[in-house]
């Protein structure tokens, strides 16, 4: 029996993603009304769109078994996790400790996205950035950002 082999891993991955997104789009809108062409319901357009995405994913998946293509580069967990984590951490901290301290913490944590961490340099950079953003955004541009903890 001939074994099915994925010849184009990138396209295969993209195809899987499209199929998943399309299925999600189709079934998550399940309780909405579909309607007809002359009286389109809320599900009409996204429903058709989702099916198109699934069909495209299936087509791409089929071609990825037939035509050779590039492999998927390995994921480097460190930068991905640290950078995205920092975005969430900043959002969590901002209302609690204010812009200045959040900035310092962001700079320090973000440094761990690279292998060589220079703590002193990061602290200095963090302090500099904290002063800069507080002056620029809070005082000069009067953006609604709390500079310190407990600020309204």
């Amino acid at each position, binding site marked *: 029996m001939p074994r099915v082999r994925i010849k184009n891993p*990138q396209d295969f991955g993209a195809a899987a993603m499209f199929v998943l997104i399309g299925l999600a789009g189709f079934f998550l809108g399940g309780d909405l009304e579909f309607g007809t062409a*002359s009286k389109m319901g809320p599900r009409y357009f996204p429903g058709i769109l989702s099916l198109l995405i699934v069909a495209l994913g299936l087509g791409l998946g089929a071609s990825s078994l037939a035509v050779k293509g590039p492999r998927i580069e390995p994921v*480097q967990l460190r930068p991905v996790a640290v950078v995205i984590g920092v*975005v969430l951490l900043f959002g969590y901290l901002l209302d609690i400790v204010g812009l200045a301290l959040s900035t310092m913490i962001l700079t320090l944590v973000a440094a761990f996205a690279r292998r060589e961490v220079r703590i002193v340099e990061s602290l200095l950079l963090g302090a500099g950035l904290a002063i800069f953003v507080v002056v620029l955004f809070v005082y000069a541009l009067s953006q609604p*950002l709390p500079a310190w903890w407990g600020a309204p």
Partner: protein
Amino acid sequence: MELDVFNNLATGFAAAATLQNLGYALLGALLGTLIGVLPGIGPIPTIAMLLPITFGLSPLGALIMLAGIYYGAQYGGSTTSILANMPGEASTIVTCIDGHQMARQGRAGAALGVAALGSFFAGCVGTVFIAAFGPPLAVLAQEFNSPDYFSLMVLGLVTAVVLAHGSVAKAIGMVLVGILLGLVGLDTNSSLPRYTFGISAIWDGIDFLPVVIGMFGIVEIIRNLESRDLHRVPVGARLRDLWPSMKDFRDSWPAVLRGTGLGSLLGILPGGGAVLAAFASYTLEKKVARDPSRFGKGAIEGVAGPESANNAAAQTSFIPLLTLGLPSNAIMALMMGAMIIQGIEPGSAVMTKRPELFWGVVASMWIGNAMLLVINLPLIGIWVRLLSVPYRLLYPAILLFSIIGVYSTNTNVAQLVITAVFALFGYVLLRVGCEPAPLVLGFILGPLMEENLRRALVMSRGDPSIFVERPISATLLGLTVALVALIVLPQIRKTREKAFQE
């Protein structure tokens, strides 16, 4: 008619050229260049990051500043391409080819100078172009009805697909996913929530900024951190070399003219814009050159042509936005977002109801370009020094500004969660080789497409033949079919792949 053009421009300059607005234009161009020159940041994240600064300004002031930021970001990107061979985005990839070679031969100054002067000239022509063709197109736009709008958007999206790098199938998928994401939120017709999962932050739809910052800004940082190739030392540029020589002028002015003409035309196309213009111009220059083998080895025409073309196109791509209310590329989608935040609904009504705003924006484009020339020629030394700052010091700052940019649009922590989600999504896209730009265009056009499709089908009582019966719509769909035929034909497809590989 000709008199009109100049009368209109005069109205615009009167509105735009106040001391305050000139200050905004200068500040915008300065900040845009400052951020745009940082390696790996193209105009899209630059504009997204700086957008919140303009919120407190008057509508005209905000748009003037944004125009400054846009041109600044683009010029900053060219500087980085020439000196460090690091394109921030697609439209400056071409500049890298010969621009960086020139820099290595010690002619960085000439390359930067020609880029600045060519861009300025193209910007001037582009401004007159908008002033001349904007009003007639706005008149035509009044003939547009729902089916025509829908067909125009189809044409725009198909063009965007054709221009995306790599696989056509993946680009179509990206457009469709973008449209789907654009539909999240309350359905305008039934007022029922779609795909909101009870999350109040996306009740009114997913905001544009977290999507763009996540998929472009944050992913770009991760990508740079992943690659080991971070220590590219920029080639120094000496200030006194900045002025191109007489020979450089002689060699480059025909390229500037051709690039400007090509760029002005290609910028108007839906789905077109700076990227297409830059690539087309480079190809053209190579074709008309007496000795094409010089290209890739530091031919000044290879800098002058594309740099002029991308700036001309950057100007004229405002035409579909300002007359039809349709953004033709991701940057115009950002501009549209900014206008809506300012309470301006882009479209032909802007020109008739608020002429001072429309012409003010047109005039501000010229002002923005002039500002660039004023600040870039003397400040080039500073940008060069900025380029030599190591990336390990830059990325925390870039990350910080991106986050603050997202947060301050509506001071909601949920926006940062959405940013993180889209950053992760963008990273997956990077791994499976999908380009996010078509997704952004689909995201913006999605709700408009649904609305116009719905209205068109209500008009025709569900009969889809309305799209081919109306002449405007039929013409647009005919163009779309022709375009699809072009990419399906294998011969042309091969050339397209070749053009993007260069």
